[in-house]
């Protein structure tokens, strides 16, 4: 079954066309890398896949739900099953680690529930977060301020937020943009490892073709808003991906 399905989607911002006639299916548990130059439409596509904006034309469905037919509570309910890891991680710097992680479940809480989560998190949630952070190797930081953590540790906090959310799909926007080359592999190992472990569908946008090829069974190449490559690149095809 398709976790994400995109049918002839185009997205325009004024006169600028960010995506043109994109069509693709991503199966449950699949790990996909989006490759393309800056401005090729990767972030726009990720936002559409995360149901955060509606396309100018075409249709998108996530986890069997059509975006066009989902509104209000229904839409929020679907979103609560999709995790998002933005380029700058989207953490509140002056929150404690646990407070950032607990926000992963905002979709299944109301306003008062969120306030309670932040001020007096439930015992069951605290235990669950402790276990998640243990897997991430940062339990000792659970009650520390997030901005006191290193960049790598903060990335783990953002991932812990997705795990606590119980996301079935994880969309990561350029997670290697602020990571040195030596740590890039660790980040991708962590992401793909968690995806395999949890059976979580993973879509990651990247600039590094070699890493995409090494870690992902499927690579989608975007150029000027169009899909120009889709599959596992062979040695001959790799050079064309470098030109994107």
């Amino acid at each position, binding site marked *: 079954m398709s976790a994400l399905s995109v049918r002839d989607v185009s997205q325009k911002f004024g006169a600028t066309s960010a995506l043109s006639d994109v069509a693709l299916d991503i199966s449950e548990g699949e790990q996909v890398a989006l490759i393309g130059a800056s401005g090729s439409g990767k972030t726009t596509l990720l936002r559409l896949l995360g149901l955060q904006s509606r396309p100018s034309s075409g249709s998108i469905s996530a986890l069997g739900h059509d975006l066009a037919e989902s509104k209000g509570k229904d839409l929020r309910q679907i979103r609560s099953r999709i995790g998002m890891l*933005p380029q700058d991680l989207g953490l509140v710097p002056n929150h404690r680690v646990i407070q950032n992680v607990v926000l992963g479940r*905002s979709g*299944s809480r109301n306003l008062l529930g969120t306030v309670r989560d932040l001020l007096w998190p439930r015992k069951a949630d605290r235990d669950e977060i402790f276990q998640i952070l243990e897997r991430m190797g940062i339990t000792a930081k659970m009650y520390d301020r997030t901005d006191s953590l290193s960049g790598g540790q903060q990335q783990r906090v953002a991932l812990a937020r997705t795990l606590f959310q119980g996301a079935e799909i994880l969309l990561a926007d350029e997670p290697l943009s602020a990571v040195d080359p030596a740590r890039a592999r660790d980040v991708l190992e962590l992401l793909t490892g968690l995806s395999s472990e949890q059976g979580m569908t993973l879509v990651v946008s990247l600039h590094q073709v070699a890493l995409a090829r090494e870690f992902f069974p499927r690579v989608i190449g975007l150029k000027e808003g169009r899909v120009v490559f889709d599959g596992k690149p062979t040695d001959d095809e790799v050079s064309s991906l470098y030109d994107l």
Partner: protein
Amino acid sequence: MWFGRRWLVVALGFLLFLCVARLGTDFVSHTAGSDPWASTFRFFSGAVSPSFTDQNPSLPADAEPFFSRLGGDLLRTVRYALIATSLAIPAGLILGFFASEQWWPANRSRVLFQFIRWPVRISLALMRSIHELIWAIFFLSAFGDAPFSACLALALPFTGTLAKVFSELIDEQNRSAKLVVTAVGGSGAQGFLSTIFPMALPDLVSYSLYRFECGLRSSAVLGFIGVETIGLSINRSFENGYYGEVWTALYVLIATVLLIEGLGHLTRKRMTQGRTREITPQASEEQLRKTAPRDWFLRSSAVAWAAVIVMAFTLGKPLVTPMLEGQRLERLSRFLTKLTPDPIAPEKSVSTWSERGEAWSEGASGVLPWLAERWENPGKEALTNTLAMSVAAIILAGLLAFALVPWGARSLANQNPLGVAMSGGRFLKGLGFVVRGFFVLTRAVPEYLYAFLLVGLMGPSAWPLIIALALHNVGILGRLWTEVVENQGEKIPRSVLQVGGSRGQGYLGALAPMSLNRFVLFFFYRWESCVREATVLGMLGISSLGYYISIQQNFREYDDILFYTLLGAMMVILGDLLSDLVRRKMRVGRRE
């Protein structure tokens, strides 16, 4: 770019010339026979020999001791400021929400949004453009002589300012975390409350403390229209020539303001930095939670502030003077009649709404001539004088601050300016301390108080008021500009010093041009505030809007007061719009 900068300097010089031409060059104007130097000398002697007892020899033996009286005045000053600020903060947050474009959920009807937003924005602009002294004149007349009037007079303009600043602070926060919360299914309100609000909190708290500090100054100034605050003590002691008492009160006020300023700095620093564990424990969740880093200073000060606010509301003179409901309504009705322009005012001072409506329809045609008459004489002239005073003051403050900043900036006034070893370090370090101290002291005293003292010493002319405005603003601009210079990257200015340039050359050749945009932004910020202050400084007897307000106050002609007040408010709103425009063009970070 240089073309623009040169024009800026030429334009400011030309504006200053115009102001001097308008206001004249009679810097000191004393009546014949007076000896201004002697009284000036006596006044400044008081600075080195402040009084610790009453200077009035004719006080009865059982009169309240000087320090006890001063302490009472100070407590009332703090109380009014505290009540006003604690009312203005929630009101500012709520109204700031309605006034801001960013806070509104994107999917709400645009018509409804504009329908609510614009009336709120206009009301907020009006609230903050009218000076607290004028609000106090209105409220004291409408509600009577009660602390409530004083607190409301402070709270109203503060609400306007806080709403504006709060919405800006919130809008400046990074929205990425909020996007994550909405991306995982949270609502906009959840996103706001769980991410944007906590991120903005250190700035909101810090600015609220700064507002409280402003509240202390404004509360003191209310003393000059008879409200029992420290300003009243200063006023009485100065008029009786007890300069030692004046200086003691001034020192007490400055110390209190500095204490709050220090507290604000400390709070902001602790909230921004947070606390970290020295040793990272490998422990259970419970142990980690129990040993989590907590800032007891912040926690205990939050509790202390809450307790002090409750005390301010409950202890001391009752906030509202006991009055029968009928009496209160009668008083309000009389005030409303006096506030209504003459041609449309009802005949009886206590009238019903239908009588007011009748008077309105009968006299409506007389309103325009009534307005024109006041505009022609003296509105136009008073408005021009007020504008000229504010412009002259801010230009003078800007020039002095620009000259002092290199001597106050820690990055320049030391042995290794910008990392380059130079001579004269020890002397300059001392000078830097003196300059920064000058900035602190000048901004700690309200403009109105400076003006009151300077008019007493220099005689009645516009210049004491201009100098008073300039003095207060040089302290604020000096501090803000020094911070801008200190926060600049060192690489470029250092290259000037490395090739043999002096500190002054480093400042004029690199640091000042690099900082110019921010200098201009803060300059406009303060000019906006100068316009507002210049409107009321005339109450000290100089021909500006405040002068005519003060004259009409004597005759209780509140309709005339309203006319001059709205004239001033219009100018402040225009200044506000101009300042906003410049700020948008140049993108600003912080505010004062």
